[in-house]
């Protein structure tokens, strides 16, 4: 347990120190967050569209952050071969994986909340009336979003540890496309008129929890031999 937290702490520290990655994350947030809140304002209808926007866009941003940071924590270590030394430490493979997942999720979630605040703040300051997020949306931000990020990071970390370099490059590529797709989808979604109710939030929370359970079930397939053999 303790070892896991040590790993998590190190990952957080390392992510906060890598300026390149942080910069691209922040640029991404500003461009898409800012852009989206601008476009909501051009459409009419007040709080409804904003809620929808935050509901869909924020998890996507979170997933993007998780993706950016997890390649730091998992892929980079594998490319360099450092992971082999880590596997020789007294931690179990599951502890290492968990530690890294926590270490990536915390800063990714932090930045995501920042992005949500930015979108809401910008929308508020630019429109004449006060646009407050609804209660279900707030619940969504504090429960579903971190779970989604953790599940994504867990899955990505799992794949990055076990796959070879080339497969990982393909995976990376697929993810970039999936993200662009998700972004377009989330933009498209807020045009249609559905509202963010407790039911919607609850069901997305259920999905997140299921995903997380599936992810932790996958960890039984973690295997040191697979990792070592696929080190380039």
């Amino acid at each position, binding site marked *: 347990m*303790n*070892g896991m937290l*040590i*790993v998590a702490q*190190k990952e957080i*520290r*390392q992510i906060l*120190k*890598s300026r390149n990655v942080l910069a691209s994350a922040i640029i991404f947030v500003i461009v898409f967050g800012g852009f989206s809140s601008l476009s909501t304002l051009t459409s009419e209808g007040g709080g409804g569209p904003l809620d929808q926007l935050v509901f869909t866009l924020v998890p996507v941003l979170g997933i993007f952050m998780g993706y950016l940071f997890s390649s730091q924590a998992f892929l980079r270590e594998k490319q*360099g*071969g*450092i992971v*082999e*030394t*880590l*596997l*020789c*430490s*007294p*931690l*179990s493979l599951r502890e290492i994986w968990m530690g890294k997942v926590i270490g990536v999720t915390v800063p990714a979630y932090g930045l995501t909340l920042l992005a949500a605040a930015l979108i809401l703040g910008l929308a508020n300051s630019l429109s004449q009336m006060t646009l407050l997020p609804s209660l279900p949306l707030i619940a969504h931000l504090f429960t579903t979003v971190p779970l989604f990020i953790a599940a994504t990071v867990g899955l990505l970390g799992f794949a990055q540890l076990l796959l070879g370099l080339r497969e990982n490059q393909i995976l990376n590529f697929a993810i970039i496309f999936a993200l662009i797709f998700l972004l377009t989808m989330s933009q498209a979604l807020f045009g249609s008129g559905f509202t963010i109710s407790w039911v919607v939030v609850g069901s997305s929370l259920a999905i997140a929890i299921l995903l997380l359970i599936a992810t932790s079930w996958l960890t039984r397939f973690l295997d*040191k*031999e697979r990792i*070592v*053999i696929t080190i380039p």
Partner: protein
Amino acid sequence: MSVIEVRDLNRTFDGKKVLRGLNFSVEKGEVFGFLGPNGAGKTTTLRILLGLLRASSGEALVFGASLANQDRLRRRVGVLLENNGIYDRLSARENLDYYARLYAVEEPRAQVEEMLEFAGLTERADDLVGTFSAGMKRKLGLARAIIHDPELLLLDEPTSGLDPEAQVLVRDLILRLSGQEAMTVFMNSHHLAEVERVCSKVAILHHGSIQAFDTVEHLRAGSGMPRLSLSLADPEKTATALDLLSQLPSVSRTEREGNRILVTLTRGSPASPILTRLIQEDIGVEEATKVSRSLEEIYLGVVQEAEGSA
């Protein structure tokens, strides 16, 4: 109980036999040199010992257990692989601190400082490791590997890429640890001159099986007749000297090595008649030294023989 015990170890990768029935053991306090050409299976053996790869059959025990199912046992083992296990984006101190805590070192702070000093990095302790030279990183890697005072140290090419100064440092450290603290050391190495100086025992691996496993002295003693290396005052006379020597009954073979002559004596023959004979013929001798075979010669001989029989 042996610190390392390998019994009938086999490993296949995609139907290809990489290790074929390995047997050896390393005792407490020994410095064990694991030699062999690239691709002989050294890294695979090391990884199986570390519990990173599975054995196809046989066992590889460390402290009587397999590290593969005993993660906590790793606390007694220090490892320096080809990769130093050091994060470029953290400082030297942060790196050591991380590992000290991973290995649950009792007084991490004091230990980190001590290790920084050992690696000669106290002044650069807070600089990012990315700015270090290859030699500094290797030293830091070594400091990292011994930060928890392991009982067994496994090293993969510990001095590769190091300059002569750092090589001496590492060599002295290995000797000190094994001498004073009875640490057991297992090292893969290509640097035979170094292995000769630090290792008490060696094994030579070739195509996945062990061709020789003994102390360096024993290997040397078993590797042929005594030899004498001569250096003449006047190199012009080398050819005459070769002629003369090859006729003597106590000489079984003569070879020319640049300006030197290498004479292989028949067993039990003294060297003095040879010198006397040369002086009588007015061939000045500048140097006459008995040479024992270097580990390099022994190694090349063993590998060549294995290649021939394969």
